[in-house]
C-alpha cells in the first residue's frame, strides 16, 4: 500500500557491487517506504538476486560504491546478523540444508537471538513450541517439519514455506524475498503467497525479487522495477508486470537504450 507520509525504510543510492572482480550492480537507486510492495523483475543474470544478497550482507559480494540506509542507519556497516536483528530479512532462493540440526531448535535459536537483541521476551522450548505451531498454521505446514533437520530433504515448496515461517518468527520491517515463487507448484504458491500477505502490514516493506509475473497475481505490487545490466531501467505499477509477461524484457532494454541515446 502506498501512503504519502509513510516513513522511508530503505534508501539505496548509486549502489554498485562486484563478485570475484566482476561488477554486477552498476548504480542502483531504490526507495522503500513502510507498507509498500516492490517487485524487482528482470532477465536471468540482470543482477536482481545479487541486489537481494548485497542488502543482507552476503560476504561474497563487495560493495564498490553508493550507500544504503535502513531506517536512517548505514546498513552497509552492519554484519549480516546485525542486519537480521535490526529487521532486515532475506528469503533465500535456495534455502540451505543443515543436516543434523532440528528445525525447531534452529528456529528457536534464531527467534530468541533476535528477540534478545531487540530487548524482547525469549521463549523456553515449551512456550516456543506453542508459538511456532501457531505460525505454521499460517503456512499450512505440518508440525512434523519441526523435528526434521533444517531443510534437509524438504521439497522445493517445503523449503519456501520454511523460509516464510522464519519471516513470520523474526518479524522483520523489511523482507526481501528472492525468487520465493521458483520451484513451487500452483497450490504451494498460493499457500506461500497467502502467508506473506497475512504477514504484510502497513509497517512492513516488502521487496519481491522474481523472474515471473505469476507471484504478483497473489501479492499485488505497488511498484514494479525492471533490472537490466545491474541498473533499474524502468519503474511502473502492477500493469508493467503484465506487460513484461506478454512482451518479454527486450523491449524495455531497447527503450532504455533509446532514452540513453537521445
Amino acid at each position, binding site marked *: 500500500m502506498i501512503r504519502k507520509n509513510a516513513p522511508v525504510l530503505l534508501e539505496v543510492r548509486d549502489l554498485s557491487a562486484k563478485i570475484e572482480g566482476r561488477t554486477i550492480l552498476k548504480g542502483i537507486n531504490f526507495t522503500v517506504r513502510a507498507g509498500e510492495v516492490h517487485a524487482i523483475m528482470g532477465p536471468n543474470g540482470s543482477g536482481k538476486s545479487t541486489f537481494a544478497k548485497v542488502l543482507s550482507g552476503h560476504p561474497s559480494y563487495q560493495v564498490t560504491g553508493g550507500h544504503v540506509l535502513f531506517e536512517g542507519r548505514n546498513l552497509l556497516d552492519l554484519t549480516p*546478523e546485525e542486519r537480521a536483528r535490526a529487521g532486515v530479512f532475506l528469503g*533465500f532462493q535456495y534455502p540451505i540444508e543443515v543436516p543434523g540440526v532440528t528445525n525447531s531448535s534452529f528456529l528457536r535459536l534464531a527467534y530468541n537471538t533476535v528477540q534478545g537483541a531487540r530487548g524482547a521476551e525469549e521463549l523456553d522450548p515449551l512456550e516456543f513450541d506453542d508459538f511456532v505451531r501457531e505460525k505454521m498454521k499460517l503456512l499450512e505446514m505440518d508440525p512434523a517439519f519441526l523435528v526434521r533437520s533444517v531443510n534437509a530433504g524438504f521439497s522445493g515448496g517445503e523449503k519456501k514455506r520454511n523460509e516464510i515461517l522464519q519471516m513470520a518468527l523474526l518479524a522483520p520491517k523489511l523482507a526481501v524475498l528472492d525468487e520465493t515463487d521458483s520451484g513451487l507448484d500452483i497450490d504451494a504458491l498460493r499457500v506461500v503467497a497467502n502467508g506473506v500477505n497475512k504477514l504484510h502490514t502497513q509497517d512492513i516493506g516488502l521487496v519481491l525479487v522474481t523472474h515471473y509475473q505469476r507471484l504478483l497475481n497473489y501479492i499485488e505490487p505497488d511498484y514494479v522495477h525492471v533490472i537490466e545490466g545491474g541498473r533499474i531501467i524502468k519503474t511502473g505499477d502492477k500493469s508493467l508486470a503484465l506487460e513484461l509477461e506478454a512482451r518479454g524484457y527486450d523491449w524495455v532494454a531497447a527503450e532504455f537504450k533509446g532514452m540513453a541515446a537521445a
Partner: protein
Amino acid sequence: MSVESRNDYLDNLLHGREAVSDAGSAWQRTLRMRAVERANELTVPTTRDEEWRFTDLSPLYRIPFRPAASAGILEKSRIHAFAIPEAETRLVFVDGHYSTELSQVNSNDGVTVGNLADVSGSSEAVAETHLAQLAAIDADVFAAVNTAFLRDGALIHVASDRVVNTPIHLLFVATRTDSAAYPRVLVVAETGARCTVVEDFIGVADGAYLTDAVSEFYLAENARVSHVKLQRETPTAFHIANTSVRVAHGGHYATWTVALGARISRHNLSIAQAGEATEFSVDGLALISGRQLADTHSSIDHAHPHGRSRQLHKTVVGGAAHAVFNGKILVRQGAQQTDSGQQSRNLLISDKARVDTKPQLEIFADDVKCAHGATVGQIEADELFYLKSRGLSDTAARNLLTYAFAAQVIERIPVKSLVDQLEKTVLEQTQTREPA
C-alpha cells in the same frame, strides 16, 4: 628403531603372559601358543610401513605396558554415567578382567552372553569353532598379542531366528596406569538371528595405558547385527582395535564407530562378504582435539554378487590433532552387481588440525556401481551466511554447524540413550565461547 629393539618391545608386551598361559581348555592354550609364535614372527609397525604411514606409534613404544594381574578397584558409581538404560544385559571388564559384580546378565532362551573364560558345553564349542578364525593374528601384531593373552572376553551367541530386542552393552574400563588390557569380543549370530551390540571403551586411570582390543563378528544367513563401537578412553591412553566381520548370504551388518578419546587410536575394521546379497552400513565419527591422533583403516571386501555397502566416515579435527582415514573397497571378480558407496567428510576447525584421507578402490568386476568421495574443509560459507542472516552470531553459527556435522553420524545410532549421551558430549566438545 632397529629390528632388535622392536622385538624387545614385543618381549616386554608378551612378558607376564605366564599368568594366563595355563588357563582354560586345551584348545585355548593351543590358540595362545600359536598366537605367541605368530607375534614373535611379526614386528611392531613403524611409519615406514605403508599401512602406518601417518600413525607414529613411537610414544607407545616408550612405555613398557604390562597386563594388570588383577582388576583395579572400581566403584559402581564411577561407571554410572556410562550406563545404557535400554540394555538389559551388560558385561563389564575392568583392566581386562571380567567383573561379575558390575555385570548384569539377563538370560534369554537361545541367547548366550557371558565371559569367554567361563563358557562350557555347546557355548564353548561355538567359541572354539570361531575364535581367532577372522582376526588377523597372522598379519597384525596387535591382534596376535591380544590372542596371546586370551582369557576373559565377551561371547555373544544368538541362536537361529532369535531376536534380542535390547542392546547388549560391553563395557571395558581401564583403571591402572602403565598397564595393558586385551579386550576380546566374539559375536556369533546364527541364521536369521538379530542383535545389537555396544562395545564401549572407557578409562578412569590417571596416566597412560594401552587397550589392545580384538572383536570378531560372524553373521550367518539373513542375520542382522547392529554394532556400535565407542572409544572414549582418557586423553593419555593408547587404543588399538581390530574388528573383523564376516557376513553370509542375505546378512545385514550395520556399524557405528565413534572415536572421542585416546592420545593415539587406531581402528582396523574389516568386513567381508561370505555370500550373496549382503548389506553393510558403515558409519564412523572421530571427534578429536589437542594433540590427539585418530586413525581408521577400513576394508570392505565384496567377494560375492549383489552386495551393497554404504560407508560414511566423518572427522571433526581441532587443536593440533590429526585424523587419518584409509578406506579400502575391494570388489572381486565374481562380485557382479555390487553397489558400493563411500564418503569421507572431514571438518577442520583449527589452523593446525590435520587430516589424511585416502579412499582406495580396487575393482575387478565389470558390472558394478561404486561411488566414492572425500572432502576436507572448513565450515561452508553459504551455510554460515544462512544462519547469520537469521540473526545468529558468527560463533553461534559455527558452533551449530560443527555440532550438526558430527551429529549426523550420532543420530543414526539405534540406541536412543546413547544418541542423547553422545550428542551432549559432541555439544560440549565442539562449542567455543563468544568473544567478549
